[in-house]
């Protein structure tokens, strides 16, 4: 039971909390297993009526799994779920809805070509004489919309509204069945600030009506703006359940990240021109007037061992295209590559690999992960491809390599036989890094290696990149987050409109606004 301590924040919902003793949802000892992965291990979770309860954790901590257990999508292998005082077992999502648990997912899954009213009432349409009662449908839809504070025409097509309004329509739809529990899985990820505020107004209203809301968001500010209580998961286990008002942000982040103290959170190595290049050091690879029509205009770039080159620029500025030319993933139609003074022709990734060049694509799912293969197979794939199919990697050697890299990169779960598709995004990224590191590259091209992964994994990967450079590897690092690029790079090449417009050393006095200036002005301001 919660301690009925008074909170500083005067909030109708928290007052109500202290009085309503019985949670509307109480999950005890919940475990969920997938082949090779224990996604949840004996987790407790409870949700009180009239509260917003934030579920926090890194990618792969088990948030979605817990939600899917509560909505009947995932079958639990152990534990009990009590809804409204009654023990429940869900055979599927329909059972959960029947018990008053409604879910709105991150991507709006409504029918854009139907009207707002049809979307809201789908599955609960009022009927008359065996047909649909359109008038009643619109009237009922309007009532549900008003509850959300939405004044839009129920007969308008859903497509004609903004994403935020569509999100609210999705919530209206969820509330049609008089849900006692509303689950919002990252509803704010594609909304702007005003739209988020609109969503929060609705959430507060529903909270006052006594609905228990489970809220997932990656934005800490939003968590503190709306939630009353926080449950933190880590590695499929419950870390703590706390009142939001009593949990400072820093402490929350350190609860989410394992093995880090308060001070270490989110601090990656700062290189900033650390690599000391002497006058006589020779470049590993030189691009001279290298270009490809429609992708990158001819550019020069020298890559030195032990140096991290950052590529900065807006999305679509030619960052990825440049890296792909250096890897031979796309063929260049002008200029050339030089290695050790002689020309180098790269027509396929295979030839680049033979030159000890490795490239991780920004499209992790589409061009990196081989989901149905195991973690171990994914790690040795590059190495094996280089050897050809006739010379299989000896089993013991493969095992050694896999174990060494999984340990060095901290891949979780530490099970080489798990299918890669069952791992979280951050861990998939680590496995892909392992695949390339196993080929012992001299030049590593990293295209957005930190996109879509959590702070902890991000920090680990950035530290690793810096270490590799210290050991003499040449690295090209691409990221949309300028702060990351600035922090990790020794030199930054700025891309704009498919053109390399500037090259700046990352000395102490360069900062993000300056970098933005260069990107915006195409290097002229320098």
């Amino acid at each position, binding site marked *: 039971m919660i301690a009925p301590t008074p909170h500083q924040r005067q909030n109708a919902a928290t007052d109500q909390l202290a009085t309503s003793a019985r949670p509307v949802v109480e999950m005890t000892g919940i475990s969920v297993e997938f082949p090779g992965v224990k996604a949840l291990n004996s987790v407790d979770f409870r949700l009180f009526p009239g509260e917003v309860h934030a579920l926090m954790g890194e990618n792969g901590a088990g948030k979605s799994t817990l939600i899917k257990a509560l909505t009947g999508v995932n*079958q639990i292998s152990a534990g009990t779920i009590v809804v409204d005082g*009654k*023990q*429940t*077992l*869900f*055979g*599927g999502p329909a*059972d959960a809805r029947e018990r008053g648990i409604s879910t709105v997912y991150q991507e709006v899954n409504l029918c854009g070509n139907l009207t707002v009213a049809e979307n809201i009432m789908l599955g609960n349409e009022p009927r008359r004489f065996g047909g649909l009662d359109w008038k009643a449908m619109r009237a009922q839809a309007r009532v549900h919309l008003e509850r959300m504070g939405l004044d839009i025409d129920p007969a308008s097509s859903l497509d004609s509204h903004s994403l935020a309004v569509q999100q609210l329509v999705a919530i209206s739809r969820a509330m049609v069945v008089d849900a006692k529990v509303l689950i919002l899985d990252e509803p704010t990820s594609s909304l702007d600030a005003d739209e988020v505020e609109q969503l929060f107004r609705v959430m507060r209203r529903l909270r006052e009506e006594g609905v228990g809301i489970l809220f997932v968001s990656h934005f800490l500010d939003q968590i503190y703006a709306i939630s009353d209580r926080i449950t933190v998961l880590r590695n499929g286990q419950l870390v703590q359940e706390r009142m939001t008002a009593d949990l400072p942000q820093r402490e929350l982040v350190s609860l989410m990240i394992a093995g880090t103290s308060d001070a270490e959170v989110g601090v990656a190595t700062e290189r900033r021109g650390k690599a000391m290049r002497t006058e006589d050091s020779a470049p590993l690879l030189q691009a001279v007037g290298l270009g490809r029509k429609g992708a990158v205009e001819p550019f020069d770039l020298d890559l030195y061992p032990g140096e991290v080159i950052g590529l900065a620029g807006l999305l679509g500025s030619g960052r990825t295209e440049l890296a792909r030319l250096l*890897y031979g*993933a796309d063929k260049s139609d002008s200029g050339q590559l030089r290695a050790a003074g002689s020309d180098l022709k790269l027509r*396929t*990734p*295979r030839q680049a*690999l033979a030159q000890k060049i490795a*490239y991780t*694509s920004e499209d992790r799912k*589409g*061009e*990196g*992960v*081989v*989901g*149905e*293969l195991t973690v171990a*197979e994914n790690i040795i*794939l*590059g190495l*094996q*491809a*280089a*050897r*050809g*199919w*006739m*010379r*299989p*990697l000896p089993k013991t050697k493969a095992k050694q390599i896999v174990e060494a890299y999984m340990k060095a990169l901290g891949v979780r779960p530490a099970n080489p036989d798990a299918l890669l598709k069952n791992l979280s995004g951050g861990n998939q990224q680590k496995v892909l890094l392992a*695949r390339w590191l196993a080929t012992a590259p001299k030049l590593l091209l990293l295209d957005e290696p930190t996109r879509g992964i959590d702070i902890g994994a991000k920090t680990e990967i950035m530290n690793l990149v810096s270490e590799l450079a210290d050991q003499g590897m040449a690295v090209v690092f691409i990221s949309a987050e300028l702060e990351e690029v600035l922090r990790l790079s020794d030199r930054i090449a700025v891309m704009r409109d498919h053109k390399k417009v500037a090259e700046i050393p990352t000395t102490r006095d360069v900062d993000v606004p300056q970098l933005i200036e260069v990107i915006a002005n195409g290097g002229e301001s320098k």
Partner: protein
Amino acid sequence: MTRIYKHRLFWPVVALAALLLACTLKRPDILGISVLDGHLFGAPIDILRNSAPLLLVSLGMTLVIATRGIDLSVGATVAIAGAVALTFIAGSHDPGSLGTALGAVVVALGLCLVLGGFNGFLVSGLGIQPIIATLILMTAGRGVAMLITGGQITTVNSAPFAALASGFLLGLPVAALIAYGVFIVIALLVRRTALGMLLEAVGINPDASRLAGVKSKTLVFTVYTLCGALAGLAGLIFASNTMAADANNAGLFIELDAILAVVIGGTSLAGGKFNLGGTLVGVLIITTLNLTVTVLGISPLVTPMFKAIVVIAVTLMMSPRLRGMLAGLRERRRYQEVNA
């Protein structure tokens, strides 16, 4: 116990056992093996021998499907192989000699390698969708076979060639020895080398495989070529069985039987993970069905229906969605009990 139940080959093996059981109920001695003239005889030996051509074709098909492809031309290739071999024998001055028979085999297999390579080139070199690329040879191939035989059903007499299908070696049918020998060699080849893993990688995610340095074009080309050669070998066994080259009917619809065997064996048509053992079980089910139909005395009028029902039952039991629904029903029952 639950583990066996969940194994993906559980239901196919059950289906195979059920078919054999149905036969024994009707004729208790059906599964007996007797020795006659030093050769083994009996229904199980017949199944092994009759399954030989389909097993060869299905082997190639499994590998092609693993790369996200399909080969519709195997039936036509079977016809061409038979036509070439028998026309070669008929045209030689010494049809009965071992040398002629060997020559026929080499020429026919060589041509089928080329045909498979043609498919492989269309798919991997030109990037044509496999179903379209192999449709070309599927429709044109029988025409080619007709040209070779001159529109006649060529019949020849050649004892060495006839031995391919009807001969015995160490008491076992030569056809079965060839097919199962090839099966073991290929099964070892794909799993002892890295070939299997690389094929699966290409089938699961071609783009990622290319960027990982996998020679996907070469692999895909190789697999189609191999598939052509295996279909050719099957065609030789067919031709040897009848000693007549029938361009229109040899290997008719064998591509569909092969695809079915692959699917029953648990390899997804979407490509990726493949299972040669499963394909073997699929082939045995399809071959045993023919025996069951005969033993049970099912009228030829309803034979296609009977086969369809068996196949539907097996594929339904293997469908993850149906299994999920059944599991859901069980959960629901538990749920209702708990809430009652």
